[in-house]
């Protein structure tokens, strides 16, 4: 355990000089320089595919750089593997936690850092150490709890504890708030500030400008594999950062005319759902969406939004019990015994929340994916065969109109970037002109350019007099697109607001299940940056 470089007085915690890394023809990192002073929180921001994760993977020993130098605490170091990184005092909290679900917290913490061949002494020492860390940094977790029984926020604490148990001085967090409630995110930030004040160095990778502004001391912006700027957070602004990220001005607000709602398109009354395990997921939902209007459903993931979309889309979870009423343009839709195809024929388009699982077949080509769900349409038939020429032509046209890149319909869906995959799904559903469009997390993992495009298409559909049900965990997105906002919590609609009258504090309360007006227990998320840059 002597690999930890000697700290030179005043030397930065991390210094990268000219780091380059290519994967085949793709240059993921180009000549990156980065200096992270000791005892600071350093934000790294950039679009998807900008090379943030690659850079951090190099720092954690997942990849060897093609060129460049890494200095930790002033001393040069070659990081062969994660073991070297850990010894150099680097800890990493991945976006997808690396925890063993059916192990206890203690077992997860000591895994790979055991004191000897037998577990008992290691477990005993870890128990004491955890107690100390818990009181020092607000990192309370029951050491004997199974990971699978813990909330996501607590699982993240275990990841942080793992790093601290290995005596990390440098903590890298990759998109840490993506899965947290506002209150949990607030708690995390308190922990991070506490760690910084103890002299730890923290690198925060995120695409949320609000977090950068709120918690970081310095921020570096990456774009297409290059480090385009490193600035003091206090000397920059969200719009400046957004501009640096994309390299051009982006619309921070979606331009849209006031809505002109028409006749009701979707009416939901008293919708209840009990899943196969007996858990009540929806506890009586009432909703109305009129033609030419976007209803945004805000809420922390897992409060029944997915179930609502699945039921409306015609494929409720197997074994679930449903009651209530759904009407589309006045006609009742069957709750059960229906399927996605019947819903599509009735005029419901659906952009599912998880495009890679529900929206696309990743191994199939783009043209096949553009046709899915509508491949039975008469214009795609040639007797009892598929008219492949017609389907291909149709797909090519849609791919062009939606600016899917590369514009190659023969490419398998998995070979497109997240943003372009999403464009394929949105193109398929929107171009069919559905009376009602269900759209879940339309811009999750999508870069800013594509976000802007998808948002414009959603508004265009609304302006064409169609109804849109938008479900998103990104409050900025809900605020930018919706004509009305409904907040879901624990299977209920907590309340409805108009976007120009809703404050984020007010919505935050509803999302946490607290009626505004009553003094909330949970912390209210502070004011957001400009909307639209989710």
């Amino acid at each position, binding site marked *: 355990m002597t690999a930890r470089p000697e700290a030179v007085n005043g030397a930065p915690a991390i210094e990268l000089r000219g780091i380059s890394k290519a994967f085949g023809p793709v240059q993921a990192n180009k000549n990156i320089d980065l200096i992270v002073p000791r005892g600071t929180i350093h934000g790294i921001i950039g679009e998807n595919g900008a090379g943030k994760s690659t850079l951090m993977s190099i720092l954690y020993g997942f990849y060897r750089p093609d060129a460049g130098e890494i200095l930790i605490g002033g001393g040069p170091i070659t990081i062969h593997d994660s073991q070297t990184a850990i010894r150099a005092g680097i800890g990493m909290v991945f976006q997808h936690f690396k925890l063993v679900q059916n192990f206890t917290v203690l077992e997860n913490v000591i*895994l790979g850092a055991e004191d000897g061949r037998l*577990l008992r002494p290691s477990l005993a020492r870890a128990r004491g150490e955890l107690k100390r860390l818990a009181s020092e940094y607000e990192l309370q977790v029951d050491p004997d709890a199974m990971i699978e029984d813990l909330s996501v926020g607590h699982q993240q604490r275990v990841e942080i504890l*793992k790093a601290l148990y290995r005596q990390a001085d440098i903590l890298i967090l990759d998109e840490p708030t993506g899965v947290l409630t506002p209150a949990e995110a607030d708690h995390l930030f308190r922990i991070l500030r506490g760690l910084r004040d103890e002299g730890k160095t923290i690198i925060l990778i995120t695409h949320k400008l609000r977090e950068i502004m709120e918690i970081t001391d310095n921020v570096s912006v990456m774009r297409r594999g290059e480090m385009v700027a490193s600035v003091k957070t206090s000397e920059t602004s969200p719009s400046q950062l957004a501009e640096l990220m994309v390299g051009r001005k982006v619309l921070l607000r979606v331009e849209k005319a006031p809505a002109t709602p028409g006749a009701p398109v979707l009416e939901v009354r008293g919708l209840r759902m009990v899943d196969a395990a007996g858990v009540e997921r929806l506890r009586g939902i009432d909703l109305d969406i009129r033609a030419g209007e976007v209803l945004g459903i805000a809420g922390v993931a897992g409060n029944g939004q997915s179930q609502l979309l699945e039921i409306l889309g015609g494929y409720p979870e197997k074994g679930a019990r449903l009651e209530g009423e759904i009407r589309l343009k006045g006609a009742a839709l069957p709750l059960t015994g229906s399927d996605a195809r019947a819903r599509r024929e009735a005029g419901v388009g659906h952009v599912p929340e998880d495009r890679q699982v529900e929206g696309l077949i990743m191994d199939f080509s783009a043209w096949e994916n553009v046709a899915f769900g509508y491949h039975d349409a008469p214009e795609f038939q040639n007797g009892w065969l598929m008219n492949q020429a017609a389907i291909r032509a149709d797909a090519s046209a849609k791919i062009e109109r939606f600016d899917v890149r590369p514009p190659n319909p023969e490419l398998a869906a998995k070979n497109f970037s997240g943003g372009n995959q999403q464009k394929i799904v949105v193109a398929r559903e929107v171009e069919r002109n559905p009376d009602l469009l269900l759209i879940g997390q339309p811009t999750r993992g999508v870069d800013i350019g594509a976000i802007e495009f998808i948002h414009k298409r959603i508004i265009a559909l609304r302006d064409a007099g169609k109804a849109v049900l938008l479900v998103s965990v990104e409050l900025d997105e809900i605020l930018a697109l919706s004509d009305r906002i409904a907040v879901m919590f624990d299977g209920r609609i907590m309340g409805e607001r108009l976007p120009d009258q809703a404050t984020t504090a007010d919505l935050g309360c509803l999302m946490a299940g607290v009626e505004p007006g009553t003094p909330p227990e949970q912390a209210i998320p502070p004011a957001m940056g400009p909307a639209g840059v989710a």
Partner: protein
Amino acid sequence: MDFPTILQILDSAVRLMTPLLLACLAGLYSERAGVFDIGLEGKMLMAAFAAAAVAYATNSAWLGLCAGIMGALAMSAIHGLAAITFRGNQLISGVAINFLASGLTVLLGQKIFGLAGRTPALAGPARFSEITLPFAEALRPVPVIGPIYAELISGHTILVYVAFAMVPLTWWVLYRTRFGLRLRAVGENPASVDTAGVSVTRLRYGAVAICGVLCGIAGAYLATGISAGFVKEMTAGRGFIALAALIFAKWRPWAALGATFLFGLLEALANRFPNLDLGIITVPSMFMSALPYILTVIILAGFVGRAIPPRAGGEPYVKER
């Protein structure tokens, strides 16, 4: 059924469950580390042949045992290479090993001994002899305990005792040692092990090697303990029965003991009562002999409750970004 008959059946069950238990524990190590292994059958068969051939040539059961272990380890190496290093499909690799062993043993046997795939019969020191535990005869007259000790507990080959000792040992290794913690972790979420700076590849190879050693002992026991020589296809599906027992035991060592005992008992009963007379009907011997296999099908079809395999089982580990 009188007491001596019951003792005899139990005694026979202990002998018959031994290869199952060893193979089951072998599979447990491999699958707990996330490498599914349906090649237990092939490994045992290869080991049985190697053990019999070398025991015949050297007239030493111990050298036979070593050869058996080496034979099974060779098969493990193939499986490890395919499943871990080259990230191939573990089921297909396992099937290939079963075919390879089935063909290779007969081919080599015919080439070397010319006895249509058999090895010559083994005798004397080429077989593991039965050990009489101390005081077995002295205690025999003691009611109940005496016969149990003398008949059931004493009088087995060393490999039987090894197999039974492996149960608490496996439990201890799995739940009380660093290796066990990492082994279980690598079968549940290899990324957690990898990011902790521990080599997934090395751990999985280790587990597959232990699997080979245990299969080797199981095969050697078949050829030089319970029988006297190798016979074509002598494992007779025991590798698959062990796999069923492993699922039945939900990948836990003590439960594996119970599950393999159940299979051993069924086989012992079938041997003892080929035509079971139930008064009204006589159960035909074919049915009795088929009992362990029928139970296997029932278990594999999932009639015994949900068994949750190790979560990363069957999946080669690919480092993601």
